[in-house]
């Protein structure tokens, strides 16, 4: 009972703190502090409710238990991280994005190919490609190669569609200017086409970054060696070791945010000239 009261009190405290912060003039500090306070409040309520209502740790472990488990099993978590994120997701991401980029360049060069590929690519991008995972496991075996393969297929189409659209972004006036400079195809591509396409390409890279992690983890449900985040999650659920599952989720969330954040940082450095980036400096 005492836990519930503490939880409710902290909730009220966090909420009023946020109300007060939101009424302050907007600054970097407040816009950072408000979501942090909100998140901390959520975690505290979670802890208090689990303790107060006596929820079985088999159903929902309290955050403190997850933190303890996380600290105690860093070696296992690191092994799974390397297997799933570095070997599976990252290698597939790089291969898939490079392949899509190459095909997009071809599609930009040949109008016929673009007219054919763009509708097909748009269609395929909406399909549940994750369903190909069992087939990839069948083709490429249980190890990380099959995970990389499904990631390649998953990231390929969003990346292709975005890159092709980006390569169309240069205006005809700008193209004409390049022609008056007597610039060839490659010069035009490198000095005009690619820079103009960068915002679109980074949009594709961001979408692909979240897809890559999901693909690598889900593919492990269909068969994997005895390490990897998907493997650990599905076996730990079977053993009712939910604190380890949540620790893996924490790793996945941190890896996903770091991945997305890294792409966003590179985007800011590369497309500093774009209106969506300029306002923030």
């Amino acid at each position: 009972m005492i836990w519930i009261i503490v939880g409710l009190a902290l909730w009220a405290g966090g909420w009023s703190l946020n109300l007060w912060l939101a009424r302050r003039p907007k600054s970097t500090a407040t816009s950072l502090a408000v979501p942090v306070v909100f998140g901390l409040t959520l975690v505290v309520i979670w802890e208090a409710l689990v303790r107060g209502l006596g929820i079985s740790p088999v159903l929902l472990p309290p955050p403190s238990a997850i933190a303890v488990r996380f600290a105690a099993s860093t070696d296992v978590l690191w092994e799974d991280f390397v297997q799933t994120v570095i070997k599976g997701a990252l290698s597939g991401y790089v291969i898939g994005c490079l392949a899509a980029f190459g095909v997009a360049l071809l599609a930009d060069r040949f109008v016929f190919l673009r007219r054919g590929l763009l509708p097909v690519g748009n269609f395929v991008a909406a399909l549940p490609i994750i369903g190909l995972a069992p087939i990839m496991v069948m083709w490429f075996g249980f190890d990380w190669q099959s995970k990389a393969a499904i990631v390649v297929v998953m990231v390929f189409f969003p990346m292709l569609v975005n890159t092709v659209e980006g390569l169309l972004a240069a205006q005809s006036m700008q193209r004409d200017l390049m022609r008056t400079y007597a610039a060839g195809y490659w010069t035009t591509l490198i000095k005009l086409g690619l820079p103009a396409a960068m915002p679109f390409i980074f949009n594709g890279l961001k979408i692909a970054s979240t897809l890559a992690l999901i693909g690598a983890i889900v593919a492990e449900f269909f068969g994997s060696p005895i390490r990897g985040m998907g493997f650990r999650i599905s076996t730990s659920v079977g053993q009712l070791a939910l604190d380890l599952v949540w620790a893996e989720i924490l790793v996945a969330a941190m890896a996903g945010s770091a991945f997305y954040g890294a792409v966003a940082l590179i985007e800011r450095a590369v497309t500093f000239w774009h209106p969506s980036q300029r306002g923030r400096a």
Partner: protein
Amino acid sequence: MKSVVPVLTVVGAILVIWYAAAVWLNAPWAYDVAARGDRVLSFAQLVADTWAQDKPKLPAPHQVMVELWQTVVEKNVTSKRSLVYHAWVTLSATLLGFGMGTVLGFALALGIVYNRVMDMSVMPWVIASQTIPILAIAPMIIVVLNAVGLSGLLPKAMISMYLSFFPIVVGMVKGLRSPDAMQLDQMRTWNASRAQEFFRLRLPSSMPYLFTSMKVAMAASLVGAIVGEMPTGAVAGLGARLLAGSYYGQTIQIWSALIMAAVLAALAVALIGVVQRVVLKRMGMA
């Protein structure tokens, strides 16, 4: 209409590559069988064999079509062997999850647009929530909800909801904020109440955004339902067909389930597209 020929060419090329890949991937098995039977395969025999195996590594398109025809048309719809039955199981979870996700997304967007605290505190967490690979923890959610007593449609629908509310929130926040300052000032000069401002200006101008987000949300919702069916022990649904097929090496069954999922996704998104065209036309926006 200009793009019909190129699209058909690309689709044709995909089919040709598919058939060629079927020969290439299934050839080792065909050679193996032939070697054990002390036969030598001619090229024509090899091709015929690779396109007609029972458990091929990659079934040829016509094998998948035959399987689709048999499981969709020739089986009774209520039979557990009918693909229509499994597709309906998946579709009902998808639609329920999509509905819940749309309502949740709409409510959150309303809060974010009209409440400054929510805008500052909720929005970053909505974005952060999507960096958690929910599909990865789908098995746990299903198992935990099962333990609480929720089973059947609802757990799957909740995974769909989690995936589909995000595009709706992002799209609707953008849409509800799309009226520019001039239009908002105009409403104020007419002494419009907040409700009037919402129903006559903000809501109508958010419609194009809503439909675009709904298409994305529907596709995401279907993926959620399919993955949500995998850990339930492969009882029913397209995800269960995928899992059962992968356990028993029934590649043709996997591919037909995949094609069915693709058809469902295409139909659902196309349906939203039709509604979008009709609504926007009635509103004079298209």
